[in-house]
C-alpha cells in the first residue's frame, strides 16, 4: 500500500505526521510526504523561479524545504525510518525539479526508498489530485483545514481514501468507531479499521445506524458480518444498532476520543456535489480524526 501525507507547517503538522505514520506503519505502507506551497501567479512563475534558483547560489532553501527537513528529522527521531548514522540531518540531499510545480528531494542512502519527500506549488486540491494520480496512492492523509469546502473537495475529487487528522492528541487514549451498513465500501472500511485497531490495540465499536427504529434486513446482515469479522480479528469490540440521524449519532458516539472509519458514499458524484454525503457531513462536523475509505 502507498500513503501520501500532506503537511503544511512545523507548527501545525505534527499530529498529522504522527498519526499518519502510525497508521502507515500498521499497514506496512510506503510513505510519501508532500508539502504544497501557495500558488504562484502565472504572471510571475519565471521570475519566482529565477529568484529561487538564485537562492541556491547562496545556499538558501526555498519555501517548504525547511518543513520537509523538519518532517524528515521527525521521522528519524521517532524511529519511523532508520538512521544510517553517517547522515546528519538533511545534509547532502538534493532537491530536483521534476515539473514546473513539483520538486523531489533525493535522500542519501536508502532513505529515498523508505520515504519520499515532495515539494509542490499551487492549488492544494489540484496538486494532491495530481500527486495521487501520479503515485497511485491508496490513502491521502491531511490535517483539518479552516477552508470552506476543503474536506468536500478532497473527498469529491481525490481518487484515494482520505484520512482527515482533526484534533488528534498523542497522549489521549483513542477508540475505534466503525460505521457499518450495506454500502459496498463498508467491508473495505471495516478491514482498514480493524487493521488500525489491531496495531494500536484500540477498543472498537461497530455501529449500524438506521433512520427508523425498524432496521432493514441488509443493515442487520452488514452488522452481523462486521460482528463476525471483528470476533475473528481478536480485537476487543462491541456492535451496536442505533436509530436516529446518521451524522448526529456518529458524532455523539465519537465525541473527541475516537478514530472514525467509514466507507465512502456510493451516491452519484453529482448528488454528492450539490447535497453532500453522510461521510462528508460526519467528517465536517466531528471533533476527531476520520478516515473515509474509497
Amino acid at each position, binding site marked *: 500500500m502507498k500513503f501520501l501525507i500532506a503537511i503544511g507547517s512545523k507548527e501545525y503538522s505534527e499530529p498529522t505526521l504522527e498519526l499518519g505514520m502510525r497508521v502507515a506503519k500498521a499497514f506496512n505502507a510506503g510513505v510519501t510526504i508532500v508539502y504544497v*506551497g*501557495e500558488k*504562484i*501567479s*502565472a*504572471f*510571475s*512563475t*519565471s*521570475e*519566482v*523561479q*529565477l*529568484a*529561487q*534558483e*538564485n*537562492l541556491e*547560489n*547562496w545556499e*538558501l532553501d*526555498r*519555501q*517548504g524545504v525547511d518543513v520537509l527537513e523538519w518532517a524528515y528529522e521527525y521521522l528519524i527521531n521517532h524511529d519511523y525510518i532508520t538512521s544510517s548514522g553517517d547522515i546528519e540531518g538533511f545534509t547532502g540531499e538534493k532537491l530536483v525539479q521534476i515539473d514546473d510545480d513539483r520538486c523531489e528531494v533525493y535522500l542519501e542512502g536508502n532513505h529515498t526508498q523508505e520515504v519520499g519527500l515532495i515539494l509542490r506549488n499551487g*492549488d492544494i486540491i*489540484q496538486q494532491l*489530485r495530481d500527486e495521487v494520480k501520479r503515485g497511485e496512492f491508496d490513502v491521502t492523509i491531511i490535517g483539518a483545514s479552516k477552508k470552506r469546502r476543503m474536506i468536500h*473537495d478532497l473527498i*469529491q*475529487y481525490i*481518487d484515494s481514501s482520505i484520512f482527515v487528522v482533526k484534533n488528534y492528541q498523542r497522549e489521549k487514549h483513542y477508540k475505534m468507531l466503525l460505521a457499518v451498513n450495506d454500502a459496498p465500501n463498508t467491508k473495505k472500511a471495516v478491514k482498514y479499521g480493524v487493521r488500525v485497531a489491531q496495531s494500536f490495540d484500540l477498543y472498537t465499536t461497530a455501529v449500524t445506524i438506521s433512520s427508523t427504529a425498524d432496521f432493514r434486513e441488509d443493515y442487520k446482515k452488514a452488522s452481523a458480518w462486521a460482528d463476525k469479522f471483528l470476533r475473528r480479528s481478536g480485537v476487543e469490540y462491541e456492535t451496536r444498532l442505533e436509530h436516529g440521524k446518521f451524522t448526529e449519532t456518529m458524532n455523539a458516539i465519537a465525541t473527541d476520543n475516537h478514530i472514525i472509519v467509514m466507507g465512502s458514499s456510493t451516491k*452519484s*458524484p*453529482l448528488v454528492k*456535489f450539490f447535497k453532500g454525503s453522510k461521510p462528508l457531513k460526519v467528517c465536517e462536523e466531528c471533533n476527531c480524526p476520520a478516515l473515509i475509505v474509497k
Partner: protein
Amino acid sequence: MLGFSNQAISNILYWVTRKRWLIVAFVISLFLFYIPSPETLTPEGHRTLIIVVIVLILIMGEAIPLPAVAMLILILEVILEIDTPNGVATSFMSDAVFFIMGSLMLAVAIVSQGLDKRLALGIIKMTGNKTWRIAFGFVAISAILSSFIGEHTVAAMMLPVALTLVRNTSKDQKVVHRLATLLLFSIAYGCAIGSIGTPSGGGRNVIMIGYISEFGLGSISYLDWIKYAYPMLLIEIPFAVLILWFTFRPNQTILDSAVRKLKVNVTKTGKMTGNQIMSILIFVAVFLGWVFLSPYLGLGIVALIGVFLYLSFGLIEWKDINRNTNWGVIILFGAAISLGIQMKETGAAEWVADQAIYGMQMIVDDVGFLRWFISVFLTGILTNILSNAATVAVLGPVVLNMGGDPIILGLTTSIASAFSYLTIVASPTCMIIHSSGLVKSSDYLKAGWKLFIMSVFLLFLVSTIYWPMLS
C-alpha cells in the same frame, strides 16, 4: 447518468469547478454579444469590448494558461471581424513586445552573473549595521537599480541578501518575523517605486510610450521620462522607509552579528571576474543605447542588442534564458497590445472614456481632475488585482482617449500602475518576496495602504506642481 461512469462525472465536475471562470466568461460574452450595441458605439467597438471583458475575467480567474488567453484574443479579433488576420498579426508585434522580451532575457543574464554578492557588500558598507539604515539602503538601492534594470531583476538579486541577514539573525521565524517583513518589503516596495523612474523600469512604461506614438499623440524620449518621473522616485524613498519602519519596526535595532556573517560570506567570492566586468559594461552600453539610440532604434531593439551581446560573449547560455523567460507573458502582452490598438481603432476606447467621464461628472464637475482621478485610481486598483503591465495594456487606450494632455495622462497611468503594494499578485516582486514564505498575505495590506495613499498624494503634487513647470 447519461451513460457516464461515476469517475467520468467526477472528472467533469472537477473540470467545471476549476474552470468556472472560463464558463462565466463564456456566458457573459454570449449575453453581451446578443444585446444591441449602444448608439454611440460601433459594432466593431462593441465586439472589441466583449473581448476585453473576457480577457479581464480569464486573467483574474487564471482559468486557463496565459498563452491560451493571448491566443483567444487573436482568434476572437479575427472571428468577430474586428480586423483581418494580417492586421491582427501586425498589431501583435511591436517594439514594446521586443522590449518586454529583451528585458526578461536581460534579467536572466544579469542575475546569473553572481553580482548580487558584490551588491550585498556594497550595501552593507554604505549602511553599517543599524537596522533602519539597512532598510533605507534596501529601499534606495532597490529603487535606483530597478529604475534601470527592471524590478524583478533587482528583487531576484536582493532576496538572498535579505534572507541571509534574517537567517544570520535567528532561525526562529517568530523571532525574526518583523525583521524579515521589514527587509523583504523594503525590496518589493523599493523596486515598485523605482520602476517608475525610466522607461526601462518596467514593460508597462514602454507599452504606454508605444501607445502614445502608435496613436499619433506625440513622443516621449528616455531622458524626457526621467525628467518627469525621477524626482517623484527620489521623494518617495524616504517616505517609504518611514512607513515601513513604523509599520514593521523590528526588535533587532542593530544587526551586528548578522552583518558580520554576511560580510564573511560574500568576501569569500574573491575579486570581480572578467565575465562580471563584461556584464556590467554590456549593461552600461545598453543603458546608453536606451538614452541616445532609442529614438532611432527603439527601446526593444536596444534591449535585444544587449541580449545578443550577452549570448555572443558566452556570458549566458540560451538554455538558461529559455528556461527562465516567461514566454507566456510575452505572448500575452503582444496580444493585449493588439487588443489595445483595436480598442482605439474601433472607437471602443473613446466610448469607454466618454462613459467614465460622463458617469463621474454627476459627482464632480472638474473634468481635468476627473481625468486624473480615473487614470490614477482605476489603474491603481486594477494593478493590484490584475497585474501592472496588463493593466496598462488594457487601460492605456482608454486613458489616452479621455482628452487633456495625453503625455501627462499616459505618464500618470504608468506611474499609478507601479502602486502595486496591496496584494501578492500585483507584481512579480510581490510574488518573489512572498515565495520566501516569510511574509503573509495580510502583511501586504498593513503597510501597503499607507504607501498607496502616500504615492497617490505625491503623484498629485508632482503632476500639478512640478510637471507644468517642465512644459
